[in-house]
């Protein structure tokens, strides 16, 4: 069954972190590699600082634009508790990549609930194939905190062996000219970040 060849990448984060850019570039590269590709995005209300998810699926033939629970090969989380929120979408042998970033949701900010400080340890206990990276810090070092999404794209590129040149080309097509230098730097830093932590 060709379904087995489909790769499922679930990208989760907080509205405003730029998950859409990462998923769109990944999808563009998959198209160039000749795959059938589907992407599901969230627009509208949830984008305002809410929990957001984009789903990228590529392979011989893809039907559903959304990933079935328990079917994600990669869960790329831009924020720690978002990884936990979507962990049940992960395949038993799937991989989790977590940006070591804490963004307090409103119920935490207003003191109604506590941010679970041990969340990464709890995820690791359930999904041993978990990698934690400091993409936000890396982006700041590259010159712009907002480039954390492209740092994570670099990590993802290395993790799933995407063709580096194609991803770089896609960044050049997608990112506005004035932000290009920082983003290319962030992408390189992401590639290096992966090899430094694996």
């Amino acid at each position, binding site marked *: 069954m060709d379904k087995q060849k489909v790769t499922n990448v679930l990208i989760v984060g907080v509205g405003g972190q730029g998950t859409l850019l990462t998923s769109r570039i990944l999808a563009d590269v998959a198209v160039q590699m000749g795959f059938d590709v*589907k992407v599901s995005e969230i627009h509208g209300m949830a984008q305002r600082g809410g929990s957001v998810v984009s789903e990228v699926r590529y392979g011989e033939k893809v039907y559903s634009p959304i990933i079935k629970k328990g079917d994600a090969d990669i869960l790329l989380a831009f924020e720690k508790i978002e990884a936990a929120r979507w962990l049940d979408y992960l395949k038993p042998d799937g991989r989790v990549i977590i940006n070591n970033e804490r963004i307090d949701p409103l119920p935490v900010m207003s003191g109604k609930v506590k941010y679970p400080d041990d969340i990464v340890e709890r995820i690791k206990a359930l999904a041993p194939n978990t990698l934690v990276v400091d993409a936000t810090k890396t982006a700041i070092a590259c010159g712009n905190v907002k480039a954390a999404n492209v740092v994570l794209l670099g990590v993802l590129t290395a993790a799933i062996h995407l063709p580096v040149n194609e991803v770089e080309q896609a960044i050049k097509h997608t990112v506005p000219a004035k932000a290009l230098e920082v983003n290319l730097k962030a992408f390189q830093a992401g590639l290096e970040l992966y090899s430094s932590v694996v």
Partner: protein
Amino acid sequence: MKRLMIGNEAIARGAFEAGATVATAYPGTPSTEIVASFAEFPGVYAEWAPNEKVAMEVGAGASIGGARTLVAMKHVGVNVAADPLYTFSYTGVNGGLVLISADDPGMHSSQNEQDNRGYGIFAKLPVIEPSDSQEALDYCRLAFDVSEQFDTPVMFRITTRLAHSQTLVETGQLERRELPLYKKNAPKYVMLPGFAKSRHIEVEKSILQLKEYAEQTPLNRIEWGDRELGIITSGICYQYVKEVIPDVSILKLGLVNPLPEQLIRSFAAGVKRLVVVEELEPVIENFVKTLGIRVEGKELFTLLGEYSPELIEEKLLGVDNSDPFGLSTQVPGRPPVMCAGCPHRGVFYTLKKMKLAVMGDIGCYTLGAIAPLEGLDSCICMGASIGTALGMEKARGADFADKVVAVIGDSTFVHSGITALIDVVYNQGTSTVLILDNDTTAMTGHQDHPATGLTIRREPTARLDLEALVKAIGIQHVKVVDPLNLEQLQGTLQTELERREPSVIICKRPCVLIPHEPSTQKYYIDQEICNGCSVCIRLGCTGLVYLDSPVKAERKAVINDNSCANCGLCAQVCKFDAIKAVEG
């Protein structure tokens, strides 16, 4: 070469290829990108209408005038447009007209999850439903032919998951089309009772013809597979079924009104067990049951929300998809939140502080309902705030009205708040109405509207002056305030609430996400003075972080420089002057 497109972009492309030259819409998730994309094509007219009723009427006029016309709106927008729609169904078209209804099962960004296939049945319209972006393009193109062939507007029904999923699309050639001659035809287009009676006969005739068309259209197809189970489905659910049970027999419906009786009978006869998979209402299922065919549907599948591949797997294959980790329910929720620097935040903080009943409306400011601001008493539909505030006053008296306000955004006020404000003046209400004027339609992604003075292509046009407008309606007391100036805001509110006359307060400041000269005045929290009282935290601002501690003296608030927009609200609410402007 094929390229990725969201469903909405593909619909716009399909309309363009079909030779549509007029497109009109009021923005609304998940429909907004349709006419926004169409506006990027050369040689076509596209507009943001003030509301969906006007969009439908502009569409009707363009169609009568001979143009192929695209009208787009979210599901609840069709309620607003229903009046012209029901009768335009009688007049029929000259140039083909396709109305996109973007439904929102799961309510990602809506106040209800009504199933607009019902409109097809009641307004007697053909309803077409695609299941990916390629079909969105191809079917939209075809929909214009159907509209002209059967002399009827066509409803093109999509759902959020189709609207905002990208799938590969092969584009086609642009159809060259001459504008047909315009000839006056009163019996067709003037719906006096006498004429309308004749037109109703034509509508019923065309529905019968459409039923025949439904039997042989390429929009409907059978994919034979394993005959043990047969699924009738449409739209995005088709993809979920194929994902989970690729070899099942499927009757895939692209035309979901009217439904193909013979095709359904022959499909049902060819399978052992028949199941309908459709989100929301049992529209197809009920039709199949009226044919006397044994079918399962809503006894398996829910009436609520969006479906998913795992739901199909669970209900049809008995797979247990419960969360093996149990972690997803143990983490704090993350509801959407007003942006740091949002001009609405201070308004809701003040309304809560003044303990007012707040009749709300649809927009980013609906987020004012969420803790810690918890600043809304009601929110029903676009434009409802002002009428509901007047109704509260009429139910409970003018004394109560001193504690009631309506809050409505600039785009929403233009959409459908104006007539309610006329009602307030006409029927001697004393309501205080706050127009939260952020100079855009923010929630849907910053579309322009009549009061921004820019067209859909951001070209300058006449700017609707809201202050002059409300004065012309008969509001004597109109105040314009800066919603980031809390003292001015509260003072104005106090004065206007006490007044036994209607008043309007325009809270004017552009959305923080609109490109503008950002404020460079940074703030910091003096950790020596901050006593952790958390008053600033009650603003619900993502620019602030509360450092909690079991030791009272160690509890502090700090500013998160990565998200702070330098609006200065927190400095205004701090009772101990711990939040200070950075000097120099």
